[in-house]
């Protein structure tokens, strides 16, 4: 057929082919331009990436690195291209053994914690993600890896951890300080109790030692007084009055010695089931004259049929009398004293100032309570702490010995009972005695 084509036709055919070629070339040029533009575009993306990017071939040889990678690792691009990827990893690379197998099987790995190694040998923790590239037949052609510098994040995490640790330590310190405070308070209470016990014990020892030495001269004085009283004619009123004063002085000195002797640990109790109301009545009778002298009104709020208490009658009477005498002393004329007795089931330990005595009671235990309340001057907080100390007194020299309450406390302790003194300046004082049911 070619043979049959004339010259003109052949020329036309050549023109067409030439035109097609031109068109093709144009297309190619256009395509190449597009390709170049795409490459430039992709290069720009890669370059401007903050995260590092590497591309390796199936033999783990570095084919591409971006600017971020070079800057992070301190290499120039040409120093990395063509090198095994292992040179940029500190120890473990994701492109070896089981990791590589997994990567190829799963086509990608995400956020693996590994370390890059810089040119100078510094190790940088990175979070590495990789993705497998395959051709249209599915064959492996390379792997793209992106790594993020984790130093700042790790630093922040570390900082956060440190802050959390600091907060925990501060909390622990606070708890410790609180525990320390509680322990210190407890220690102080124990110390107070020890000092109190020491004072009582010292007073007891002193009493034992001096009792004999003091009581003998007192005996001489009182015998002398008796003799002179008998000898003096009734008209010698002044002399008889003086003898009366001497007798009173001897009685007082003897009473103090007696109170001091009460501190002696050898003092034994005669514990029996006793009716606390009748002990209260006896005590009131003993101080009746003093009430009447000051015109003090005594009000009773006494519950009948309360169980008997385990007590040494004489001793508990002594405690009640001591408290009643203190109440009378604290009041001016026409005051009021309220006496209460009742049964109470212990719900919780009281913790007021002035509370003393060993805690021998159980929560829920049935106890007998005696309250002696006055409308006197009251006791300051400062003094309330000292009222059980031997020789502590706010009364003038004509008044008390400062032994009444410390002796009472000793008696209460021997009974394994409790005494609690509550007071308000200007309003009055209340003594609460908790006794064991027999």
């Amino acid at each position, binding site marked *: 057929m070619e043979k049959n084509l004339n010259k003109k036709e052949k020329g036309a055919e050549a023109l067409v082919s030439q035109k097609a070629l031109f068109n093709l070339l144009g297309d190619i040029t256009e395509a190449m331009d597009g390709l170049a533009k795409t490459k430039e575009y992709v290069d720009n993306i890669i370059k401007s990436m903050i995260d590092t990017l590497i591309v390796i071939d199936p033999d783990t040889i570095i084919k591409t690195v971006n600017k971020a990678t070079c800057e992070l690792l301190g290499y120039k691009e040409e120093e990395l291209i063509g090198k095994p990827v292992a040179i940029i990893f500190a120890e473990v690379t994701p492109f070896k053994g089981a990791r590589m197998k997994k990567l190829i099987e799963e086509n990608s790995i995400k956020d693996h914690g590994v370390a890059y190694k810089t040119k100078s040998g510094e190790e940088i923790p990175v979070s590495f993600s990789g993705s497998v590239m395959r051709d249209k037949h599915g064959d492996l052609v390379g792997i793209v890896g992106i790594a993020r510098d984790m130093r700042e994040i790790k630093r922040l995490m570390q900082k956060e951890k440190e802050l959390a640790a600091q907060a925990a330590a501060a909390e622990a310190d606070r708890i410790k300080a609180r525990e320390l405070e509680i322990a210190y308070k407890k220690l102080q209470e124990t110390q107070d109790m020890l000092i109190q016990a020491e004072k009582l014990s010292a007073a007891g020892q002193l009493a034992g030692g001096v*009792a*004999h030495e003091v009581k003998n001269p007192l*005996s*001489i004085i*009182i015998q002398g007084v008796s003799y002179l009283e008998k000898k003096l004619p009734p008209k010698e009123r002044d002399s008889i009055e003086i003898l009366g004063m001497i007798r009173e002085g001897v009685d007082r000195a003897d009473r103090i010695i007696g109170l001091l002797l009460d501190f002696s640990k050898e003092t034994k109790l005669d514990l029996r089931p006793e009716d606390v109301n009748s002990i209260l009545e006896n005590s009131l009778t003993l101080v009746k004259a003093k009430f009447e002298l000051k015109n003090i009104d005594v009000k009773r709020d006494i519950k009948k049929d309360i169980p008997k208490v385990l007590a040494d009658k004489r001793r508990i009477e002594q405690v009640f009398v001591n408290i009643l005498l203190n109440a009378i002393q604290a009041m001016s004329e026409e005051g009021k004293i309220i006496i209460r007795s009742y049964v109470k089931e212990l719900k919780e330990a009281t913790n007021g100032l002035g509370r003393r005595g060993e805690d021998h009671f159980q929560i829920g235990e049935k106890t007998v309570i005696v309250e002696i309340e006055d409308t006197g001057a009251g006791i300051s907080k400062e003094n309330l702490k000292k009222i059980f100390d031997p020789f502590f007194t706010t009364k003038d020299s004509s008044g008390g010995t400062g032994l009444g309450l410390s002796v009472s406390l000793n008696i209460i302790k021997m009974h394994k009972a409790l005494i609690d003194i509550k007071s308000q300046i200007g309003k009055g004082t209340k003594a609460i005695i908790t006794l064991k049911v027999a």
Partner: protein
Amino acid sequence: MGLTRILIIDDEENFCKLVKMNLELLGDLSVTIATNGKMGIKLAKKTKPDLILLDMLMPGMKGLEVLERLKKDENTMAIPVVMLSAIGDEPSKTRAMELYDEEYITKPIDGPQLKAKIEEVLRRFK
């Protein structure tokens, strides 16, 4: 009826003298004084008093020992003893009471109280 004879054994001489003066002043009593245990035992054997007032805490021979010797001697064992105590020797006092069931009085005591106690003990012993 003659005088009731009392022997007081106490190292406090002034006390003994005043007890003697008081008891004799109050009537019907005659008091002999011994200011130590040995002298007391000797006088007790010799004079056989109706009652002995015996101080528990004396230098030298103590009251308890004097009491034991008096109670062992057939010449003095029947004489009632009232012990005088200034609460300086509680264990001895307790022991004396347990052993011999004797009375005791605590110092200080005035004349009339002492006389009342003596009369009470003598009534019991008759």
